[in-house]
């Protein structure tokens, strides 16, 4: 990257300066949380800093730039600590920090809000499981569950359909919409109860502010031991502004997942073929829908001709 011109008179030169500084600010820290001594191309980072940042009588250009580089990482790490307490507990502090740094180096924030910082974490873990080895599945379960919490916390709640809205409709023609705050999860480990216990003692995610972060001392966490492997199906949703889990039967999960993908009600019910569902199938499905409608999970329907 070229050093910026000494006297930026054009928007292009102004932009070039911002690109250079953003690159420096968002670049990964060295192991001791200082700014890396070498620039991307191997040149001394000191020279790069001197090319655009003034020194003062107490700090070199490098040290002044380093304040911003460190603040960036302290801020995004703090946000991750607050949003992923479960993942942090199973990985341990050091491994969690390495995962955070690697993830954010690859997927820096693309949103004005820190709320969305973890939106691509599951994708990252799937692509680069070495950062969570040997706990890939456990880490994926927790990353999915903790992201579902974020979605449930402040996603939209649309006016719900009532049970009677669903009566008498042609199943072959209607498609039901599920609330945007509802996430359906298939988990391979018993992370739901684990997270409930963990969250009992944790605070809310930090809000946005214009204050600079101090390097908050990391809280000691214990690696979760004895977490059982158990396939379970979960709906994470919001009711009366509180986040709830609802455990689902495999058939319920299949049906709801199909509806969420946008297939017709009839097609969604066909997903149940081959599953053992106790009692009368029609009555059971009706009971499920009544229960989901009572929770306000359906928020729209589309009827094709």
């Amino acid at each position, binding site marked *: 990257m070229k050093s910026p011109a000494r006297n930026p008179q054009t928007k292009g030169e102004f932009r070039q*300066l911002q690109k250079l500084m953003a690159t420096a600010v*968002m670049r990964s820290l060295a192991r001791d949380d200082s700014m890396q001594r070498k620039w991307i191309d191997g040149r001394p980072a000191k020279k790069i800093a001197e090319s655009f940042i003034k020194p003062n009588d107490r700090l070199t250009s490098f040290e002044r730039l380093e304040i911003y580089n460190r603040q960036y990482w302290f801020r995004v790490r703090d946000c991750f600590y607050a949003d992923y307490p479960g993942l942090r507990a199973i990985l341990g502090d050091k491994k969690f920090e390495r995962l955070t740094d690697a993830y954010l180096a690859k997927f820096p924030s693309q949103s*004005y*809000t*820190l*709320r969305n910082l973890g939106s691509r974490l599951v994708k990252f873990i799937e692509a680069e499981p070495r950062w969570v080895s040997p706990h890939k599945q456990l880490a994926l379960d927790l990353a999915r569950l903790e992201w579902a919490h974020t979605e449930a*916390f402040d*996603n939209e709640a649309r006016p719900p359909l009532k049970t009677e809205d669903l009566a008498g409709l042609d199943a072959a023609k209607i498609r039901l919409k599920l609330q945007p705050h509802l996430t359906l999860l298939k988990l391979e480990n018993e992370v739901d109860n684990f997270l409930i216990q963990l969250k009992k003692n944790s605070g809310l995610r930090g809000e946005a502010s*214009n204050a600079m972060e101090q390097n908050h001392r990391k809280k000691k966490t214990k690696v979760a031991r004895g977490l059982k492997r158990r396939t379970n199906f979960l709906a994470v949703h919001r009711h009366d502004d509180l986040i709830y889990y609802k455990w689902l039967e495999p058939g319920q999960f299949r049906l709801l997942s199909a509806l969420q993908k946008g297939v017709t009600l009839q097609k969604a019910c066909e997903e149940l073929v081959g599953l053992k569902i106790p009692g009368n199938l029609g009555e059971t499905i009706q009971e499920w829908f009544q229960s989901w409608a009572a929770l306000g999970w359906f928020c729209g329907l589309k009827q094709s001709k």
Partner: protein
Amino acid sequence: MPANAFNGFTDYGIGIGLRVPHYQHILSKKPAVGWFEIISENFMCDGGRPLKVLDQILEQYRVVQHGVSMYFGSSEKLNREHLKKLKRLVKRTNTPWLSDHLCWGSVDGRYTHDLLPMPYTFAAAKVTAQRIREARDFLEVPICVENVSSYAEFHVSEMTEWEFLNEVVERADCGILLDVNNIYVSSKNHSFNPFDYVNGIPAHRVAQIHIAGHSKFEKYILDTHDHPVIDPVWKLYERAIQRAGKTATLLEWDDRIPSFDEVHDEALKAGKFLKQLENEIASA
């Protein structure tokens, strides 16, 4: 000049920042507070508890929006989706003015979530002022820009920070949210006289003042908003209101947040200076 075009011709007194640890106290005790400042981004969501709390606050209190991610000083185009969400919130809160920082923080769609300092150049002032105008036209609410604390300066700068602020606000014809703590922090980090700053800005554009605490390190000061306001900052505040008049004043406390009463008491200390000013005006 208590009311001006830049604060929607309002006459707000002393307020505090609305923060999560105080929600329960505010909603249950309903303390008498002049107004609350909210961080817009914390409420630019589509549902859930944040909006429910906000609506309850709006039933009882006056609210002013303050943003942290508009990045007026960015060299990119304004983010329309961001503006649309912000406008929805503006309609909800009926904020008489809206503030954000004279800084930048995103490039190529990547966000630093920081308030990065501007190069004080005419080119940067022109770009920034244009973005402020565009935002104001879209949001249809008066806009004020806040001076930030900074830890670095650029070789390319062609003027002082306060000259740059003047250049931007005159070009954009917008208001100033004067943060006297940020002036103090930057004056220590860059070795200038903070009173030169306060004396050098167009006082008629000051719509709001921020006060806050900070953290002192060996070689620099960090704007942490986690301490009471120190005396030198109160002195700058005193000078600022001498110049600008009785101005809407807000205490920011964002980290290691003490009880509501402690924060509120700290904010109300500004009342002594405002009263003093009133007396001076009356006796003159």
